[in-house]
């Protein structure tokens, strides 16, 4: 092969390699990207059936139920318009408590969100951006009475 042909072969190989990498990248991206929904969107049926997604909001006051002696827990995630029941079995992040923001990963099973991961945030002041957005229209009221829902999301 002449040097020119060699160079062209190399360029062709590189282009092919990069294209394959980009294609695989797109595939992996489409499969592994996770969308975020707030309880109102979940209640409206916008969340995909059987697919993993993230849900975020506040842990409703007085909603946490633990089964004594096991790792099982149930609670309600709320954006003060709608609530979604969540079940989880496993170790909770240290900052998980009622009245705090929470993000959970998992799927819907019927009307219940079955979480496989509850996100750990190590700062009490910290609120995940999605959660504060989800709550923006409805700032947490001082009491537990949900405000009348004025606009749809």
């Amino acid at each position: 092969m002449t040097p020119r042909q060699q160079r062209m072969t190399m360029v062709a190989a590189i282009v092919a390699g990069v294209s394959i990498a980009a294609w695989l990248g797109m595939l992996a991206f489409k499969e592994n990207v996770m969308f975020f929904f707030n309880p109102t969107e979940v209640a409206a049926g916008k969340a995909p059936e059987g697919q993993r997604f993230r849900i975020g909001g506040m842990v409703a006051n007085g909603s946490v139920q633990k089964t004594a002696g096991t790792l099982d827990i149930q609670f309600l995630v709320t954006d003060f318009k709608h609530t979604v029941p969540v079940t989880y079995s496993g170790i909770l992040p240290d900052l998980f408590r009622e009245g705090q923001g929470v993000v959970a990963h998992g799927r819907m099973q019927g009307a219940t969100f079955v979480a496989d991961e509850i996100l750990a945030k190590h700062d009490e002041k910290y609120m995940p951006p999605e959660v504060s957005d989800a709550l923006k229209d409805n700032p947490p009221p001082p009491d537990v009475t949900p405000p009348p829902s004025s606009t749809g999301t």
Partner: protein
Amino acid sequence: MIPELGHFALILAMVLAASQAVFGIVGAARGDLRWQAAVRPAAAGQFVLISVAIGALLHAFVNFDFSVVYVASNSNSALPTFYRVAALWGAHEGSLLLWVWILAGWTLAVALASRNLPVTFASRVLGVLGLVSFAFLLFTLATSNPFERIFPAPADGRDLNPVLQDPALAIHPPLLYMGYVGLSVAFAFACAAMLEGKLDQVWARWTRPWTTMAWAFLSVGIALGSWWAYYELGWGGYWFWDPVENASFMPWLVGTALIHSLAATDKRGLFKSWTLLLAILGFSLSLLGTFLVRSGVLTSVHSFAADPTRGLFILAFLIVIIGGALTLYAWRAPLLKSPAGFEPTAREAFLLYNNILLVCAAAMVLVGTLAPLIADAMGQPPLSVGAPFYDALFPILMLPLMALVAIGIHAAWKRGQLGQSRLRILGGFAAAAVAGLVLVYAGYGPGKWMTPLGVVLGVWIIVSSLFDPIDRLRRRLTLPRGVVGMTLAHVGLGLAVIAVATVESYTVERDAALAPGETLVLGRYAYRFDDIQRIEGPNYEAERATITVLRDGIPTAVLTPERRFYWVQRQTLTEAGIANRWNKDLFAALSSQLGEGRWSVRAQMRPLINYIWLGAGLMALGGILAASDRRYRVRAAATAPDPATQAGAEPA
């Protein structure tokens, strides 16, 4: 009084940085030697002044001066002295101060070491560094002054974030910043070369040791962060593809590409404009990392409190500095020609493949990290890209790279002459395949498909990199530090690859609700929950569990995981109990009380995990050795380079 002194010193330092930039860049453009003579004193003065500022803040921390807002927010009278010092960089303002101090340190080092360089070139390098320093000092003073006072002073401070009260984390930021900021030196050298319109092999030889040092620091910094996340934060994971981890990993990937591309520029005068581009990219990604951490635009465990002004400032800074450098690049890069050709199996070619794969990997991480931001900007529903994305793609890019490393080590410059090394390549591969497959299948049993591949490639890299130094020793040739460093770094890489591949397949993990006396079985190991006690630390109280690990029924380790409650910040933190074995870690973490006398416990067994950090440490050590090679200290300007005679005989 003393905090004001620090504040004042910081303002003076900013003025000096501005004059350093003007005297350096404009002075060199005008050819004014008197202007340029002011650059080095300015750099030295700046270092002294920022040191005064650091000293002032340290003084405030050590002496409990809670009238300083930053001290009051990040310290407490019960905090031990060691952490009062480390608290200096425990939050945004102080870590910026640390950043500018380290930048001033690098600048001073360049000022001292550049006396052999041509005057205009050295002035330009220092001028660009002055510009960067000016921007960061302006940022610090305008948006994040660490010396701000509060009146009346609170009686006690709000304490350092408990997550940061840990020895590894105390030294993690300084080391990481040494790496981040060190990349600004490579950036400054690149800008100076573009301003000169000239880039030769001598330039590459000046730039290489600085870049390699910065890369080595970055490696250690990242490894320490990962190690800390493992035992403190992550419930046993070592890498989470968290946006801020990614922010440090991208410059590392590009930096790795840069040190290899610089090798080709140094030895063969090749890839000149590519090297420049990588130097610009590396520093841009460092800045981007800063932007991501400071602005809180992404959800991350590291996010400091979100502050849009700060984010905007850094974004503007990013655009000015990077846009400026890229404009300069577009203007000047076409002037640079890389004359020599090479064959597709030559060492240059392998370095090129290495660069392509590393930059692709960095691009992939960038896409994953920024996707949530881009989706948000385009009005798409919020999305997140989690570990599965990276776990699927990263090996696809890295496994071929590992094979290329193992082969490329044998290639000679210009003409690959791989035929001559055929026996070494095939023999090495055969040895690695046998050793790797035996390790995997006899030692651990079947796992993910990538594991045997990763282990074999890792062993192959180690075997391949040992041929050359052993050969040199047998022929009684000298063993320059460059060769030793390169070998160490590649052995470290091989170890890390083997370790990651093994950990990914053979980690055993279980969560359980245990009462004292109960046992959790993990393969051949049994974790027996013996009892739980209350203990008290300087600024926290804790529950400490005693867990005995039995191997085939015989006690082999006692783990004491804790669950700490820090009084001041009212925060609960988990402190894992870990026993290191030469080939595995036994890990236990204690979580909340579940009622009925039970506690939630996570038990893990992770094989070879320590070799990930050992490998990273070897890479860094290799980098430091290579950077201290004698050939970089020879008066480079005095002699013309002679690539032809060096070809093949010298390390890359």
